């Protein structure tokens, strides 16, 4: 009989974790897209051999502890201010690969000004924007990207257009700015989506190398806890409801 021990062998290995993810247990809920997004970014940093040149900025939100999982030098920014902090880093270390990793509340609500102006100044950085349409860490409140009709703890009857306005498509807004080189919207819920996202991440870091200004990657993701769904159901819901409003694909560059 074949035992597990027979299977767990070096020659049977099809996947291993990048050494740039620490061994710390993720603080993310099982089924959440953050872990995959973290892995993809760190894989690219490892594959490009740029760990000594990479400095990341963690936001306020679920990924506030991104610095515990990503094994690169990192700073933690005040809520929404990551693009300003990244500007401060990139300006004094112009040769470094500087990135921010931000959620929708951080980037598209409180940090809108910092996002727009860092993009407008063509800072030589990468902005990763994880959009799950909700404030996850604080317990599932309405975000700027919450869909019309979507129920959250602060839109318990569903997002009401007349009182709460429209969801903001900040990625399309950012694409209008001359300082932005590359804008794309991706996802990480299927192997194919992961492969596409990884390609986009690589392109973004290549742009930094070539000093091309801002690369902006939105990753539409799920929040199974905040959406109160199973992980599988949340991914289906995301495809059916989020993707029509936030369609995947390259927007610029």
């Amino acid at each position, binding site marked *: 009989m074949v035992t597990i021990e027979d299977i767990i062998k070096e020659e049977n290995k099809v996947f291993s974790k990048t050494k740039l993810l620490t061994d710390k247990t993720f603080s993310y809920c099982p089924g959440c897209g953050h872990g995959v997004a973290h892995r993809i970014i760190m894989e690219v940093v490892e594959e490009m051999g740029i760990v*000594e040149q990479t*400095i990341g900025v963690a936001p306020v939100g679920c990924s506030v502890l991104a610095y515990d999982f990503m094994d690169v030098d990192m700073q933690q920014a005040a809520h929404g201010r990551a693009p*300003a902090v990244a500007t*401060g880093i990139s300006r*004094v270390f112009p040769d470094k690969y500087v990135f921010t990793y931000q959620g929708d509340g951080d980037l598209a609500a409180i940090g809108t000004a*910092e996002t727009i102006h860092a993009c407008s100044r063509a800072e030589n950085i990468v902005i990763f924007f994880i959009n799950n349409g909700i404030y996850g860490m604080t317990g599932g409140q309405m975000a700027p990207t919450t869909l019309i009709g979507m129920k959250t703890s602060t839109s318990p009857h569903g997002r009401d257009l007349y009182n709460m306005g429209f969801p903001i498509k900040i990625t399309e807004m950012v694409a209008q700015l001359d300082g932005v080189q590359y804008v794309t919207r991706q996802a990480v819920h299927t192997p194919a989506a992961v492969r596409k996202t990884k390609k986009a991440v690589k392109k973004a870091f290549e742009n930094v190398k070539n000093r091309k200004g801002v690369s902006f990657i939105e990753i539409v993701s799920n929040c199974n806890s905040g959406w109160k769904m199973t992980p599988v159901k949340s991914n289906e819901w995301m495809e059916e409801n989020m993707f029509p409003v936030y369609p995947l694909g390259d927007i610029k560059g």
Partner: protein
Amino acid sequence: MGELRLMKGNEAIAEAAIRCGCDAYFGYPITPQSEILEYLTLENPEPKTGMVVLQAESEIAAINMVYGSSACGKKAMTSSSSPGISLKQEGISYIAGAELPALIVNVVRGGPGLGTIQPSQSDYFQSVKGGGHGDYKLIVLAPNSVQEQYDFVALGFELAFKYRNPVLMLSDGAIGQMMEKVELTDYIPRLTNEEVIKRTGSWATHGKPEYRKHNIVTSLNLQPEPQEQHNHHLQAKYKEIEENELRYEKFQCEDAEYVFVAYGTSSRLCQKAIQLGREKGLKLGIIRPITLFPYPSKPIKKAAKKVKAFLSVEMSAGQMVEDVRLAVNGKRPVEHYGRYGGMIPMPDEILEAMEELIAKVEKKAQKKAEKKAKKKAEKKAKKEQK
């Protein structure tokens, strides 16, 4: 002697930044300190010294850019005036919490709200009692001349890196706008990246080399126990700063019976008031705090042994006077005189306020003496009756 130049206070700050090897300045226009950003953009130091100068989209962005640069171990600074400094408070709290060295300049104007564009000293509480959230202290330097505005840039960076703590230069619209002679120092080259890594490699983000763990700059702890520990560490550091970095000046205090306590522009005005008072035979002096944190509580307490009363003069409704009272601890009368909302008191008004205080104190002393004499006489009469 170094090169002499006639300069505005704000220009002196900008020139000092270039000459002392500052790596980055991030600013946003606001009166009465916009000359700092204007001077720096005109001088354009980047091709010469490598110093970055950037106009941010807001005061908030500017202080967060400072956070990013100083967390890389670089000498970074920002400047603003009162309403803008209010906006920076969140960032200042993060910088204090993450223990980053940074220099922040406040060229104070009248408040509250949008207030005025004229000089004031009404941001004392904000500067020394917190301003932002949490238990933290800034090292606060209070210049009273254009020369000191110049000198305190280099001093500010020195202290900021010595203690890994934000330093605030608390100036005001008068010193920022007035012109005085400044003795310039020689150019000090910026540190190279290798020197920066050598100096700050244990904590700053430079990109993780093979030989060390990744450096993380954060002010967050999800658990209260380590956060309390971190606060203990901060408090110990502030105590050390109090023990080592007190700076103050005494002027004509040797024989003074009545003493002003004033910093910044007010201290200059008090000096003139002292001169006018001495011409009238009044024995006046001044204790001028140069650091507002640490505060010269001990020298004031010591002076209270022989001084009859203190007059705290500040262009505010009375903020610093609370610290003078704490230092004196009820031993002597302490009063406040101030003009505010952008008004500057004249030396003769200040002298008048002091004369009123003197009259009050002397009247009280006279009454006390009379009462004592009366009691004595009564006692004597009683004794004689017996």
